[in-house]
Every structure is written in structure tokens, then in C-alpha cells.
């Protein structure tokens, strides 16, 4: 491939934000027809590098050449015009518009009377179909589809531009195995047509499956550019985290199942909990020290169920028993008061409070449960913030930075810190490892296990079946908004068991098909 002329050459890129050097002299070269991965921990500077290329950030030093010409994009529009299509890490679409419009915005088909909507929607349908979204009507409001689907819509949008460079910043973080497979198929097709693809992912399997070349960053520094096939995993991890892979705490084995003693009362016991249109009545019980996994495909209703347990949505049927007492969890406040916490999958819209500092973001839920007029004493607050920032290894370790300036993965850690600070008895984690680097992912998984062993009940929702199987005592399997099975997770259970269950169960009867 090196025989071709590079399409993008970035040299010595430096970007400073007030108080941090996010990038310090980083190089990146993209060749046509390759898939190139940017590798690095959370906060290494991957997204920043991408934004430097597309003109979102102004660079402080360095040079950018696109197609042999020095370029200084003044915003994404310029980059797009130069043939660079980008899907950013946080989904950036307009929720007030339809799916089809989001795909086509700025590229609507025009007829004699301005935009020809019929043609535009047809085109949108075509691009959506490419992403396997043929079932979605382009007229559907974007707000009514899940984050994962929005991610696919964003990718479909990137296909509209006849790009020479396609940038995908963690496109797979919210997709499940099937969609990843489909996405890779498209990426290969695009690559083979001579487009350079810049790809970011924290899943090493995916990296080895799809990429040709890697650029590794650490702490804003350029470490090395290597060919994927020549780089063993251990070496790659070592370069990324700056320690040898062996030092990385690994939780290998499957968790030993926590046996419920007969007569023991569950923390939470819900019967027939449901909400019309979102999830059909479900029974769930969660015991002290137990990890309950929710498994299912996209849109199967896992998030919905989690939200009902937390009172984020109001159920319209069912009973809710907490430690043997009937309760009415009508809103998040009540849930928190009853020591139930929920970490959302939709970090940007429902999670972080962007302009507040890391410190405030960690403390806010605890503060809310104590009430507005009982401020947490400074000493206690300092201790809490310090504890969770250290425990979860939030970087940069500066609690007074606005949380929106943290990298995606670090924001996630702050959020988990927030919920742990409330000392819940039941912690519902919805996609807690989404967008988190391998090191941190292992840390978070460890945290989950530790919490459980200290007696906390945990609901663990993840699109990665592997995690679910490894961490859970019990697995609730959902499909099409029904609970179809509850699997006791012993040694006989594997990912395949669950996939089979999903495939073979008929939703309406609950029996195997």
C-alpha cells in the first residue's frame, strides 16, 4: 500500500486546550484503500486528532495535507467539501427531524421547485438500506429510535458524500455483533473502492479483524505507527497503556454463581412490571450481592426495563417490592431515596451535566438525595470526589474541569462514580463499558464484582454478551420487549446458549419455536 500516494498527511499536530495539551506533535498518514485505526486509552487524544483533521478545532502547530495540498479547514463544511466524511464519537444528529432528513441534510435531491422530497426520501431509503436499516421508514422521527440505531443513521449519512476519506470514531460502541458484522462488510466494500478509512474502537478483536495499519497515541503523544498484522496483542496493549500487558489486571474466569439461600428476601422483587408500547409485563428479582444481566438484541427492551426499575419512566402495570415492602418508585428521586441507582446508556443527553465540573457531576446525585438545603460538607465532598476519581482512574485528575471537556470514556467513569457515591443497594448499569478502553473496562468489571461481593445488587445491561455471561449470576433474556427467559448462569451457559435462546423463542408464546 505504501506504493500509493498518501491521501492525508498530518505532521506534528499540537492542540492545546486551556490547561491541557491534548495533542503534542502527533503524526498520522492515511493511504487510499486502507483501514487505519487510531489506538489509545480514553483521553489519549483520538477524537481530538480527528477533530483537528476536520477543522472542528484549530491546531496550534503542525501541518495538514489532504490530497497533496496543504489544508486548514475552517469547519466541517470545508472538510466535507474536500472529501472527508466523518461520524463523530457522540452521535450528532438533529432529533427534531426525520431519519431520512438526517441522512440527507445538506444533500437533498433537488427538482425544479427546490427540494424534491420524494426523491430525497428514496435516496435516504437507499442509504439506510445499505446499513441494514431497510425496515426504517425515512419519515420516522429520529427521536423515536434508539441511540444504537441513530449511530447507524449517522454512518448512513456519511455514505451520502462521495468521500475519499471516511472517519468513524467508535462507531461500534453501541452496536451488537450482527450489526458490527454488517458494518464491517460495508467498510470493506468502501475500502476496496479506494477510500481511506480512519477507524477508532476499543475492541481489539475488531481492530484485528478489520484494520490494516495502526497509529498509537498515549497521553497526547505519538507512540508509533505499525502494521496490524505484524503487531501481537500484548505488544499493542503495552504501547497503548505504557505498561506491559501482563500488568493489566485481567479478570479471566467466569464469576462463581452466588447461591440464594432458601427463604432469603430479594432486594427488589417486581411482578408484572410493564409499560404499554415499551415493555410488556416482566417479573424480576434481584438479591443482595447478585449480578443480574439483561441480555438481548438492540431494541429488545433492556434499557426500557432498567428505566422502569429506576422510576425514570412510569410503569402502567405491576407491583414493586423493595426489601419486602411494597413501594411506588414514581421518579428517580424516590428511587435514589430507596437506594436504587441507574447509570444511563445515553451519556450525553441523560448522563453528564456538561458545564458542571467533574466534582459537581460526581456529587450531584448524592446531594439531590440529601436535599437542596443540606450541602455536603466540604471535607466529606473532597473525600468522596477524591475516592472515586482515584478508584475509577479518571483522567485528567482535575476535579474542577467541566466534565464536557473530558474524553468520552472518562465521562463514563465520572458517571459511575456519581452513582457509587450514593451507596446504592441496587445499581443498574446500562452499557457501563461502552466506549471504555480495555484497561478501564477491566477496572469497571472488577468494580462490579467487588460491589457485588460487598453485598450490592447489580443489574448489568450490555450489548456485549461476553461480559454479561462472565459477570452475571442470573441472565434475563429479552426479545422484542418481552422477557423470554431467565437463565441461571452456571458453567454450562455460554454466549451461544443465549444467542440460541433468543433465536429459538417465539415471543408471543414464550415457548421455543
Amino acid at each position: 500500500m505504501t506504493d500509493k500516494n498518501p491521501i492525508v498527511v498530518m505532521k506534528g499536530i499540537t492542540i492545546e486546550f486551556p490547561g491541557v495539551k491534548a495533542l503534542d506533535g502527533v503524526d498520522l498518514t492515511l493511504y487510499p484503500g486502507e483501514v487505519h485505526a487510531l489506538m489509545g486509552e480514553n483521553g489519549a487524544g483520538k477524537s481530538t486528532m480527528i477533530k483537528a483533521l476536520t477543522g472542528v478545532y484549530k491546531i496550534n502547530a503542525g501541518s495538514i495535507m489532504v490530497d497533496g495540498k496543504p489544508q486548514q479547514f475552517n469547519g466541517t463544511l470545508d472538510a466535507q467539501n474536500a472529501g472527508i466524511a466523518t461520524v463523530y464519537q457522540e452521535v450528532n444528529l438533529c432529533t427534531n427531524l426525520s431519519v431520512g432528513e438526517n441522512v440527507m441534510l445538506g444533500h437533498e435531491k433537488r427538482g425544479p421547485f427546490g427540494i424534491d422530497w420524494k426523491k430525497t426520501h428514496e435516496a435516504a431509503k437507499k442509504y439506510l438500506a445499505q446499513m441494514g436499516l431497510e425496515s426504517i421508514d425515512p419519515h420516522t422521527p429520529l427521536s423515536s429510535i434508539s441511540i444504537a440505531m441513530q449511530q447507524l443513521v449517522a454512518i448512513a449519512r456519511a455514505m451520502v458524500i462521495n468521500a475519499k476519506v471516511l472517519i468513524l470514531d467508535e462507531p461500534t460502541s453501541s452496536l451488537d455483533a450482527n450489526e458490527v458484522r454488517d458494518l464491517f462488510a460495508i467498510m470493506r466494500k468502501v475500502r476496496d473502492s479506494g477510500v481511506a478509512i480512519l477507524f477508532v474502537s476499543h475492541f481489539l478483536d475488531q481492530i484485528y479483524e478489520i484494520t490494516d495499519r495502526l497509529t498509537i497515541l498515549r497521553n497526547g503523544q505519538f507512540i508509533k505507527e505499525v502494521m496490524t498484522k505484524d503487531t501481537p496483542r500484548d505488544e499493542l496493549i503495552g504501547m497503548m497503556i505504557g505498561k506491559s500487558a501482563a500488568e493489566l489486571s485481567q479478570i479471566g474466569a467466569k464469576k462463581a454463581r452466588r447461591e440464594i439461600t432458601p427463604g432469603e428476601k430479594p432486594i427488589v422483587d417486581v411482578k408484572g412490571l410493564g409499560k404499554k408500547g415499551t415493555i410488556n409485563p416482566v417479573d424480576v428479582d434481584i438479591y443482595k450481592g447478585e449480578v443480574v444481566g439483561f441480555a438481548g438484541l438492540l431494541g429488545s427492551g433492556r434499557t426500557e426495563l432498567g428505566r422502569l426499575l429506576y422510576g425514570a419512566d412510569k410503569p402502567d402495570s405491576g407491583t414493586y417490592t423493595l426489601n419486602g415492602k411494597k413501594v411506588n418508585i414514581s421518579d428517580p428521586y424516590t428511587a435514589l431515596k430507596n437506594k436504587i441507582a441507574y447509570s444511563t446508556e445515553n451519556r450525553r443527553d441523560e448522563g453528564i451535566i456538561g458545564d458542571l465540573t467533574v466534582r459537581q457531576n460526581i456529587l450531584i446525585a448524592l446531594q439531590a438525595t440529601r436535599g437542596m438545603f443540606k450541602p455536603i460538607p466540604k471535607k466529606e465532598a473532597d473525600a468522596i470526589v477524591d475516592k472515586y476519581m482515584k478508584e475509577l482512574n479518571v483522567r485528567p485528575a482535575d476535579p474542577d474541569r467541566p466534565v464536557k471537556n473530558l474524553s468520552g470514556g472518562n465521562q463514563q467513569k465520572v458517571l459511575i462514580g456519581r452513582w457509587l457515591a450514593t451507596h446504592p443497594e441496587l445499581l443498574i448499569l446500562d452499557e457501563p463499558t461502552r466506549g471504555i478502553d480495555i484497561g478501564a473496562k477491566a477496572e469497571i468489571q472488577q468494580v462490579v464484582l467487588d460491589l457485588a461481593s460487598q453485598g450490592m445488587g447489580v443489574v448489568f445491561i450490555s450489548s456485549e454478551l461476553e461480559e454479561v455471561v462472565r459477570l452475571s449470576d442470573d441472565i434475563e433474556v429479552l426479545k422484542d420487549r418481552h422477557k423470554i427467559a431467565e437463565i441461571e448462569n452456571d458453567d454450562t451457559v455460554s454466549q451461544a446458549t443465549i444467542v440460541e435462546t433468543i433465536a429459538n423463542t417465539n415471543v408471543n408464546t414464550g415457548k421455543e419455536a
Partner: protein
Amino acid sequence: MAEKAKAEGNNFVKKLLSSNLTWSIVAFILLVIICTIFQHDFLALSWNSNTGGLAGPLITMLQESARYLMIATGMTLVISTAGIDLSVGSVMAVAGAAAMQTLSNGMNVWLSILIALAVGLAIGCVNGALVSFLGLQPFITTLIMMLAGRGMAKVITSGENTDASAVAGNEPLKWFANGFILGIPANFVIAVIIVILVGLLCRKTAMGMMIEAVGINQEASRMTGIKPKKILFLVYAISGFLAAIAGLFATASVMRVDVVKTGQDLEMYAILAVVIGGTSLLGGKFSLAGSAVGAVIIAMIRKTIITLGVNAEATPAFFAVVVIVICVMQAPKIHNLSANMKRKRALKAQAKAVAA
């Protein structure tokens, strides 16, 4: 060592330069300088035995600023939640009308004051209820209240400009607006104390943070257990209450309510004060100190207009120019001008080097 100190110094200067407060204060000083050029004894203070306080242009300016301080403070909290309260001017009129009307009907002055405050609070609560519990848009809700409030003031006084200057026993109220504490205008002192109290309430409890959280991301706030509806209700109630105090200041100054003029257009001034103070109309982080300086600046602009003898016809244009200048001064683009040029030059040089 010295290097580090210098770097820190530089940082400090940078921070200072990019702070809205700095520029507000610069603007204020500039206005004072302009006034002093036009009227050499502008800064002069004298003792007025007639009123028992200091006298001079600056003093009347502070006296007028009291009401802006009140509405700007309430407005800051409302704006922080990404809302807006267009009704403050009308609430001033209603509260003033209530006070003057009850007073001239022979009510005890303290009771009148209480009623006026209660009326303001009540209107604030209605705003709050409509915005939070019914989920109406703040702009339109308070716009309606702005219309209706004017009408309420007229209903209270049956359309008259009720005058209570001759009512016996009105001294306490008169004193609020015209009296002096240690030579300084009483209303200004009271207003500053109230601003400080609100500030303490926000920053010493978690109220400030929660207000900001709701303004930044309402749904995320709800998920942390905050009750956004309660917070919204609260800020509108506070705004109504403070507007009532402003209304008392404005009417007690002449012991007369003017159903059309009292508080007219003052919502705009309050919003300007808040923005000059550095709080974004999109909600989020707020600065009460900034708004307070903004409020004093508004009073100062008005004083400047009188001092310079700007023609009645030209006053709005003059006002606009000053506001534009202040806002442009605060724009980050202006602050980063030199840094940006430097960066661009460096990049150009580099690009040349690469090309070569």
C-alpha cells in the same frame, strides 16, 4: 523560579482579560470618566442635611440602581434554568399599585408592604406553576403575564396613578427608597444585602448548583434525583418576589404608582444586565456578582445619558451603542485577537517550510 512566576502572572492576566466581570468594570469606569469630562464635579459628593445623606450624581445613580439589582438578580436565576421572565416590569407595577392603593385606602404601611410583596410572590408562583407543572414555554408564559400584569395594576388602582405621598404614616416606605444608611442610599444598601443573601443561599447550599444543572440538562438532572419542576417553580417565585421589592423601590421613591410607566421596559434592562454580567441566555452557569455589576452599569448608562444631555430622540440609539460596545468588548474573538494572529503567522511559516 522567576519564569514560573511570570507564567503564572501571564495566566492570571489572561484569566482577567477573558472574564466578563473585568470588562464590565472597565465599561463602568469608562462611563464614569466620560461623565466626569462632561461635568467636572461628577464624582463630587456632598453632605445633604436635608435628606441626611450624601448627595451627588453618583448617589442618585446608586439610588436608581437598586431596582435593577433586584430584578437582575431574579432574572439571573431564571435565565440560568434556560428560562426568561418578561413579566418583572409588570410585576413591579402590580406590587407598586398594591402598596400605593392600600396605603391611600388607609392601611398600615407595614401591612401594605407585606401585601405588595405577597402579590409579587403570588404572580411569580403562577409563572412558576405554568412553566413547571403545565410545561408551558417560559417566554410566552411570562409574556402573557407581562400583558396581564399591566392590566392588574390598572384594575387595582381603577386606572388611576394612585398617589400616596400625602398619606400619613407612609414614612417607612418612603425611607426605603429615599432614606440613607450611614450616608449611603438605603435602597442601595438593602438591595446589596438582598443580592448577597441570594448569593449565599445559592452558593452555600446546593441550590445554585441544582439551578445550573437544570439549566444545562434538564433530563440528566432529573435522572440524578433533582426535581426540575420544583427548581423551576422556585426561581420564578423568587423572581416575582424580588420584582415586587423593585416595584416598591420604584414607587416609593415618589410615593406614586404610574400604571403605565412603572417598570415599563425594565425586563429588557434586567436581561441586559444579566447578559453583561456573563450569564448565557441559553442557561447554565450564572454569576450573581456579574449581574449586579451589570445592573449598576445600566443605571450608569442612564445617568450618562442625563449627564451628557443626550437628546430625548437619541437616547435609545445611545443606549444601543453602549450595549453593543460592551458586548463586543466581551467577545472572545476580541480577546483572542492577538493570540490568533500569532498562531496564524506561525502556521503559515510552518506550511511554507513544509511546502519547501
